[in-house]
């Protein structure tokens, strides 16, 4: 198996426009994507997420405004671009979603089960607070350069595990992430598969999640994207906020370092 190249291999599942083949079909699809950029329904989740961040909630009736996302209590701006990272108070490397769960439990008094419930929303009847909060926090990092730290030994360990997971073949189809995303020039139907072994593909992909997915009419986060990839690979279910999900995120986010974060995006 090839080793990690200079910028690593990134499991990014958005299609980087630059990676599209030169054809009129690809051009028209690029036009489709461009036409969707203005008026992104993700903004509706951002509005709701901001409300959830600021409202006193839970048994302790406290807002999340004291939550430390890595840049200090309550500092939201730019935080997403520096996640995941190690948090001493939790003694764990956490991505945004697991950090939000942590804050909801420790600051607001929710039980872990309550905080973690319904991570992936389904229509107006089953809204996900976590998706809204993620959309809001991510939107506050728009334009900020990806700068995921790898200073702490636990961060480094997570990176290594994530890298291993990326190449790990399993499930009924013997797929690894790298099976689809480790080679140039591949596609599934009309969607080009970015070669995440290239810096270009890696950066463009990670920086466009979370995103409003038109095919679902929902705002989806990076945890969702990994979860859904595992499902498509016929892997066992990737548990929300698990060490495995976080490790893969560390691996991919770190490899996107240097690129400006541009989510929430809008996708098929």
């Amino acid at each position: 198996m090839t080793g990690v190249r200079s910028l690593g291999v990134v499991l990014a599942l958005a299609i980087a426009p630059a990676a599209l083949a030169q054809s009129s079909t690809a051009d028209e699809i690029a036009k489709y994507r461009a036409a969707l950029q203005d008026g992104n329904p993700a903004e509706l989740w951002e509005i709701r997420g901001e409300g959830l961040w600021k409202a006193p909630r839970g048994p302790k009736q406290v807002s999340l405004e004291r939550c430390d996302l890595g840049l200090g209590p309550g500092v939201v701006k730019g935080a997403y671009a520096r996640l995941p990272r190690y948090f001493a108070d939790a003694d764990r490397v956490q991505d945004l979603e697991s950090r939000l769960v942590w804050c909801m439990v420790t600051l607001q008094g929710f039980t872990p089960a309550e905080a973690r419930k319904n991570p992936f929303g389904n229509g107006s009847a089953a809204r996900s607070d976590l998706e809204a909060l993620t959309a809001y926090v991510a939107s506050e990092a728009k334009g900020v350069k990806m700068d995921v730290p790898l200073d702490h030994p636990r961060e480094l360990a997570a990176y290594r595990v994530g890298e291993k997971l990326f190449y790990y073949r399993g499930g009924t189809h013997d797929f690894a992430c790298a099976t689809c995303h480790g080679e140039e020039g591949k596609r599934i139907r009309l969607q080009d598969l970015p070669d995440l072994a290239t810096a270009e593909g890696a950066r463009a992909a990670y920086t466009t999640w979370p995103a409003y997915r038109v095919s679902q009419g929902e705002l989806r986060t990076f945890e969702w994207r990994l979860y859904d990839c595992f499902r498509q690979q016929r892997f066992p279910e990737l548990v929300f906020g698990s060490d495995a999900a976080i490790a893969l995120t560390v691996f991919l986010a770190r490899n996107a370092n240097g690129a400006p974060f541009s989510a929430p995006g809008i996708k098929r």
Partner: protein
Amino acid sequence: MKSGGAGAVYAALSAAGWLKAAGADAQSPERWNKDAFESHALADARKALGAEAAQSGEIAFVQTPEIAENGAVVPIGVTSSIPGTDSIAILIEKNPNPLAAVFDIPAGTEAAITTRVKMAQTSNVYALARAGGRYYVATKEIKVTLGGCGG
């Protein structure tokens, strides 16, 4: 349902006023042309709208890609350069109910609308514009693709 080519489309349009349900009072928000919206065939939707035989006119699809990666959200922009345009309608031939939307354009508002529609499958999209009591039409085929896994 469609009997022929574009000529048949235009020929099928009948003249009985544009929107039976909406009168001059554009302020009342509850008028809704049930017959038109609930028609299942393009010809019936046109009949229910009561549009006259439409000729091709200066109506452009703007910012309207030819391929939609997903049929749930297809951006459609319609601009009518016909002076005096006071109404624009969007119909999608192969949808279960072809009529998607009707926009009333008061004086002072540009006859140019951008919105997003659902398309059940690859289909001709019709933009109808009414100006000076006459009806004009333009059409464009938009392909709807099956997606891959990601994105």
